[in-house]
């Protein structure tokens, strides 16, 4: 029996595509290959016995080749599904994408509807999960005004959704300067009034330095809290329904749920 080969790659679509390229061209046999990503903040993991670990260095050229053949030989829709899948927080995502593409290259465009297959269903679920969280974020994200009228929002999403929400806010607030900061991934989207948004890794961005909110900020936060507390109907009070619709994990960055914080 052959040993298993486990390809370890960076947690990004480029990393996963590079690993797929390497695994594919090794001609070792798909059933003996597995692809895994280093998840965020991962310091150690248990290694499997009788497995050969291969550490993949992300290579733009290989990644572009894979993405090009997905678009041409499967479909644009499949490509979108794969990209959104890569933003999921599911640990097995890289291998699911790998299996999906193996099947996709043999089935062609109709793979995206082939929901009776477990791999396709898993990728479909991941997509749903990512876009659900992104949709929640459109509503639950909160900006605070710091000096110079700049708006700042902090988010802590499970999936990597910041690039999915950026187009919405830059269309909506096209004349505002704003920053959306993903605290878990230290990544951010920066938008300057009248310009397109940019995505950047903000390792050096220290939010603790930004403590000076504008004068108006406190006033509007307190007005918003008054509105929030008054709009609920006492006779229909329903904590369970509220928690179901707005899980606690979203509430950290929402002023209406934080009594004193600015």
């Amino acid at each position: 029996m052959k040993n298993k080969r486990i390809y370890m790659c960076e947690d990004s679509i480029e990393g996963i595509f590079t690993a797929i390229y390497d695994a594919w061209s090794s001609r070792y046999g798909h059933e003996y290959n597995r692809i895994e990503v280093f998840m965020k903040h991962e310091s150690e993991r248990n290694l499997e016995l009788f497995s050969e670990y291969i550490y993949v260095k992300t290579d733009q050229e290989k990644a572009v080749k894979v993405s090009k053949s997905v678009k041409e030989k499967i479909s644009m829709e499949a490509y979108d599904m794969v990209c959104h899948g890569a933003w999921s927080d599911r640990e097995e995502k890289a291998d699911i994408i790998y299996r999906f593409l193996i099947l996709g290259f043999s089935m062609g465009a109709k793979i995206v509807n082939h929901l009776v297959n477990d791999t396709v269903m898993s990728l479909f679920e991941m997509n749903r999960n990512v876009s659900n969280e992104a949709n929640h974020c459109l509503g639950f994200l909160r900006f605070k005004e710091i000096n110079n009228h700049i708006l700042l929002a902090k988010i802590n999403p499970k999936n990597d959704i910041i690039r999915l929400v950026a187009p919405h806010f830059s269309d909506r607030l096209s004349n505002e300067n704003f920053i959306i900061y993903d605290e878990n991934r230290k990544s951010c989207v920066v938008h300057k009034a009248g310009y397109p948004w940019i995505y950047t890794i903000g390792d050096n961005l220290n939010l603790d330095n930004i403590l000076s909110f504008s004068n108006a900020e406190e006033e509007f936060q307190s007005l918003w809290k008054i509105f929030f507390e008054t709009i609920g109907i006492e006779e229909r009070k329903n904590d369970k329904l509220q928690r179901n619709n707005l899980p606690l994990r979203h509430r950290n960055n929402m002023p209406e749920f934080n009594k004193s914080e600015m």
Partner: protein
Amino acid sequence: MIVQDNLSIQEKLEILTDAAKYDVACTSSGVDRKGTPGPGMGNTVAAGICHSFAADGRCISLLKILFTNECIFDCKYCINRSSNDVVRTSFTPDEIATLTMEFYRRNYIEGLFLSSGVMRSPNHTMELLCESLRLLREVHHFNGYIHCKVVPGADPALIEITGWYADRMSINLELPTADGLKKLAPHKTRKNILRPMKQIQLGRNDNLLLDCSPRRYITNGNEIHNNIRKPQILIDDTSHNFSITGSNTSALGLVKRPSVNRGFVPAGQSTQMIIGATPESDYQIISVAEALYNKFDLKRVFYSAFIPVNEDNSLLDLPGGPPLLREHRLYQADWLLRFYGFSAAELLSEDRPNFNVLLDPKCNWALGNLEVFPIEINKADYYTLLRVPGIGVKSAERIVKARRTSRISFDDLKKMGVVLKRALYFITCNGKMMYPTKIEENYITNQLISLKEKLPLGIGDQMTYQQLSLFDDVNFNQVKK
């Protein structure tokens, strides 16, 4: 009436939010609009966006406030009725514009929901609402969502200009029948409510015909199936009341339209009815809703479980608190009317005028129509699939999609989100039922009732109490006739 002067903006916001909270609709749905180049801010998303959830679990999407609670009307169910002794105050259009803009920038809200008590006269009030909207649209260049109430009895020209600024407008039907309205809202008439509804419907149709720009199709998964029910310009029995509906003239044109054309009430209109304050049956209520959908092209009808805020002997007594389960059943039925292709007369009848508390309306219908089942999952068309208990809009879509590539088994159905323990009595996969079962009304009814229905959280808690007291006189044979 004591009008309090010199209140702070905080105090006004509290009073005028508190007075607006009983209004049901807070949806920001129905229109997709990109941000505009140039000054201002805002866009809209057809599916709507929820920004928070209040302590009662209801979605907060819009800044829902009254312009004023100074009201000359004396509607018996309303906290702001003129004979009540409450603190009265009003916003200014400027205050409303500032609150909306600053809340919107911080992503607290999708936009504004502006309602009002009737101050001095319907026209005076409507002018103030209109001025608030004008400030937002023309001075602040606000391009987000605006929902505005129509004050019954306001001049059609005022309604038209407001319609050019608003995305959605609504006129509350208040009570399901004209009798109820007469009894509880002596200053409102059915005519004053239906007339602006018709005006807005015709105005929207006109606008869509005249507008050269291609119609924005709504891409929200749920709303795609809206075309089950084609919008019709039917003239209702009450049409003789509508002097504005001359056959060859446009319904619009009473006023000049504003320079930025966002369309006339592009997100359509909605209405709401109070449930449980008057003795109408569920059948009457959903028949009214159906007529509103068909004859007035409404986007939504909202049902509001009556909460007695005033003591008045013409109101029905509600010892068990607001009728939340009944409200829930009506919303389920409303969904069946809008997305599932059902008609009111299929769901209820004169002999069986109320929904079953123990079963949802779709199960109830299926049990009364067992002869059409079982249906074959691999063959049945989309609308037939939708009629199966346990299959919803999303799972029906997935079934239709998935069977293009392969035959579907019970295992697959489960993965697609079909609730098999409910559906299994009504379907076959590849000619076989999931397991042999009796297709017999009483048997399936008992099976379905023994499954715990997933009611909205909080309603179930009261249900146990209601169920026990109802069980004594539930007669299944009669219920299912």
